């Protein structure tokens, strides 16, 4: 095994935050490379401080390193100064553990958590010295794969990635290792048959091999994607049925240097049935699978002991919905092992006074700010997007927060939503102003921050047919909102760059032709596009024009029911007619309730995988409407069969 360390070391004196490149984290491993072990390099295509806490990557890191036939190391995108130094000194991309060159690994596996990192993916493949295009790779070249939420529209990266993994990775990484192991042993490197590997990979459930599919276009528009003989017409995501079988990460990585989310993270459930129509994560990760509460407590206790952290986040898409959340949180806070010095955070708070009460209990000391996500400025808007928070819920939550000592409340909103009127946008300022007013009753000085993002309609959601707002329209709405909020002392409006939302739309909604656009942006120097100081929409516009495509065609145009979508051959388990029906309901302002407590809507997620929602308790959570407006007054009757973990 070769290490680049002596050469890397020489570069580190001159670059910013050199600790990002040294590895050595507690929990990191020094696997022995050699024949009989498939070597994986798990790559997060953003900076170390953003990528290190990623739970998906840490889970697969442990699972792979436990296998006798596999090993895994990690790599992150070097920051611009380090990349320049590396290219100057001819140092390729390397693993942080042992500084092994990326091209010496058998598999380069990218985590795709956000679309604006796509140019970084190209840059890292290139920096690794691996041929950029999948079609140019031969028997001796590293296999390039990718997984994560963005893989649910894989087409924009299809030219560069040999295979995409859809859904939960825990099981499929083992199957991929076996296929790779056999292929590596099949012949000498130069004589290995890449086509045979592609065919073997395509036989794995949940693995999409884009080279086996051909998009067809008519009059400049996609009309369908055709599988090669033998390839499945539709690739369906993988779903692990029981989170309790996978208590990972057991040895969370403790970084040597500052990272985002510098705390212990314990995943309490996967999936969400709230049914928010804008939320891709909520749609593609169904059904709900809760971790047994006893295992949560155990992972928290072991994790804190292992890491020395004094904060634990219980993570999921809506952690306050975890069955028995109050007891679990109280047990952690009151655990004598923790000496009263451990704080618990729930990154996604439900909007109701009841939840704030729980928050008050767990955040006894650091009561600085609370965050809620009403997403829409008016009840009308919220029924369209199915985020069923009433004004009473919100005001109750805010009153509860201010009266119990919090001084800052942050509210998340989206603009550019379907059917949005100017009054919906102005409603954000009105909600904010009312929250400030409530706060003043309890405290002299309060801050309410309304953070506004431009909506990007994503694949496999009911809004996938919607044409998103142009940057100019989003900017107009931001200006409108700012003007409305101007007179209100204590209310601050923050907004994301609308042009970055448009670029995200291109990368997340494009078909396979978007690959050439991404390549042009990368060649023009457009890396780290999710960093505002590096983002440049003109790079994207020029690249689009050069490829004969337009923003209007890709992003802003509404799609018809029968139009082919770039991700039609990819399935998150959701029936297309469910999504279309929900889209029509949205336009008609018909909302749907959380399906854990109502009859099944037959979205396809449970039935398709032979699963039920797995919850820790068959009784609806206490606390009334849960901020959804859903009526649970009928005695907590549960209309669907639920699998209970609590006897």
């Amino acid at each position: 095994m070769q290490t680049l360390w002596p050469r890397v070391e020489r570069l580190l004196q001159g670059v910013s935050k050199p600790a990002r490149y040294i590895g050595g984290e507690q929990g990191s491993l020094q696997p022995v490379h050699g024949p009989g072990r498939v070597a994986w390099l798990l790559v997060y295509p953003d900076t170390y401080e953003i990528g290190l806490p990623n739970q998906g990557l840490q889970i697969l890191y442990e699972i792979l390193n436990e296998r006798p036939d596999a090993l895994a190391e990690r790599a992150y995108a070097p920051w611009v100064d380090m990349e320049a130094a590396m290219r100057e000194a001819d140092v390729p991309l390397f693993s942080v553990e042992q500084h092994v060159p990326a091209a010496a690994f058998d598999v380069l596996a990218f985590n795709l958590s956000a679309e604006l990192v796509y140019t970084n993916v190209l840059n890292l493949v290139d920096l690794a010295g691996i041929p950029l295009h999948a079609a140019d790779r031969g028997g001796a070249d590293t296999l390039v794969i990718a997984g994560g939420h963005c893989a649910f529209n894989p087409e924009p990266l299809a030219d560069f990635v040999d295979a995409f993994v859809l859904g939960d990775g825990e099981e499929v990484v083992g199957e991929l290792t076996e296929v790779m192991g056999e292929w590596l042993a099949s012949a000498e490197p130069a004589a290995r048959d890449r086509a045979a590997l592609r065919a073997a990979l395509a036989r794995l459930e949940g693995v999409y091999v884009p080279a086996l599919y051909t998009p067809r276009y008519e009059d400049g528009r996609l009309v369908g994607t055709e599988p090669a003989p033998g390839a499945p017409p539709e690739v369906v995501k993988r779903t692990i049925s029981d989170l309790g079988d996978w208590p990972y990460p057991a040895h969370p990585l403790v970084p040597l240097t500052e990272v985002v989310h510098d705390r212990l993270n314990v995943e309490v459930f996967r999936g969400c049935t709230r049914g928010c129509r804008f939320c891709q994560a909520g749609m593609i990760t169904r059904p709900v699978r809760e971790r047994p509460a006893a295992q949560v407590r155990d992972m928290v206790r072991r994790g804190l002991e292992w890491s020395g952290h004094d904060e634990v986040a219980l993570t999921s898409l809506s952690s306050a919905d975890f069955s028995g959340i109050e007891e679990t949180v109280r047990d952690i806070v009151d655990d004598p092992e923790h000496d009263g010095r451990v704080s618990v955070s729930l990154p996604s708070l439900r909007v109701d006074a009841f939840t704030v009460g729980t928050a008050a209990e767990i955040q006894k000391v650091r009561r600085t700010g609370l965050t809620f996500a009403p997403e829409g400025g008016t009840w009308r808007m919220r029924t369209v997007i199915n985020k069923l928070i009433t004004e009473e819920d919100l005001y109750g939550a805010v009153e509860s927060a201010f009266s119990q000592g919090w001084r800052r409340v942050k509210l998340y909103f989206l603009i550019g939503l379907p059917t949005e009127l100017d009054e919906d946008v102005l409603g954000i300022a009105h909600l904010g102003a009312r929250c400030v007013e409530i706060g003043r009753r309890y405290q002299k000085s309060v801050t309410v921050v309304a953070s506004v993002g431009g909506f990007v309609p994503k694949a496999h959601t009911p809004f996938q047919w919607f044409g998103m707002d142009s940057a100019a329209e989003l900017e107009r709405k931001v200006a409108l909102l700012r003007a409305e909020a101007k007179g209100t002392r204590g209310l601050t409006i923050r907004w994301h760059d609308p042009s970055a939302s448009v670029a995200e739309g291109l990368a997340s909604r494009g078909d396979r032709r978007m690959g050439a656009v991404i390549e042009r942006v990368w060649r023009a120097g457009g890396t780290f596009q999710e960093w505002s100081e590096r983002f440049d929409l003109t790079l994207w516009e020029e690249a689009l024009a050069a490829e004969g495509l337009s923003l209007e065609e890709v992003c802003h145009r509404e799609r018809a029911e029968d139009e082919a979508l770039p991700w039609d051959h990819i399935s998150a388990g959701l029936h297309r007619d469910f999504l279309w029906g929900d889209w029509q309901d949205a336009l008609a302002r018909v909302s749907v309730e959380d399906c854990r407590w109502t009859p099944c809507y037959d979205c396809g997620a449970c039935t398709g995988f032979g699963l039920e929602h797995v919850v820790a308790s068959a009784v609806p959570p206490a606390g009334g409407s849960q901020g959804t407006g859903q009526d649970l007054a009928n005695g907590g009757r549960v209309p669907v069969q639920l699998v209970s973990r609590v006897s």
Partner: protein
Amino acid sequence: MSPEGQRRLRLRFAKAGKIRFTSHRDVARMWERALRRSGLPVAYSQGFVPHPLVSFGLALPTGCESRGEYLDVRLAAPRPDETPVAGLPAALSVLLPDGIEVQAAALVEEAEGSLQQEVASCDWELEVFGVPDEELAERVGTVLAAPSLVVRRERKGRQTDDDIRPAILALSVTGSQGHLRAELATQPRGVRPADLIRALGTDVVPGRACRTHQWIERDGARFEPLPMGGPGTGANATHHARRAFPHVRDGNQPDPRGSGPGAPDPRRSGPGGADPGSPGSGGRFAEQHLGERPLAEHQGGAGH
């Protein structure tokens, strides 16, 4: 001011190898986590956001190594199962990342000033490239002969011109190729090795830099905040150390029942969760977790 039974623990540690690229703040975080895991009764501040009462000595520039870094930790009243001070260097080293090694531990008098105030100068070993040794010796002579040496440097984001000559207390070539030894004052404004090397000429390229000693001066005597071979190192030089370093006193001698092989090991943490049938508990870890390795800088060399 200090509540009943509180003690002041001084620790000396080395920082070497890859970990030299972490910052002073990073090292502070490593210590906070290690102290939490150690089970030592660290005292916390009162107030809205209680924080552990730990104070660090002079910041070590990112990229530099050291054989003499310090921190003071305020401890609450002793616990029966507390690790004896003499055992702390070993016990804490295993909780710290590779490359951070605790060399000595001792309880110090409350009357002692803070590390930041007391340390007057530091010794450095500096490696440089780009200039032959004879030339280097000449430049050193020029620097020492100069009445003043104004260097432009960045301070808190601003460019300033400072005369660093008064802070250069000693400077010499060591005899081994491209190596310098320097003693640099820390008061009123410290001189960093990079500032000194720049003063030797723009063609002098800095290599490794290692802080070897920090010095306190009092009543004409010069001593280290905590010497090697002191009480906490387990060496037999306690008597001598106490005479030479009057601020160092013996550690407490807690009830021995709590120590020894039966004591809880805060770093013990096997793979796997609660479920005995899970792949986590049944699986095999190919290699040891780094955090369990007490040795410094032994991996990532020329390969396996």
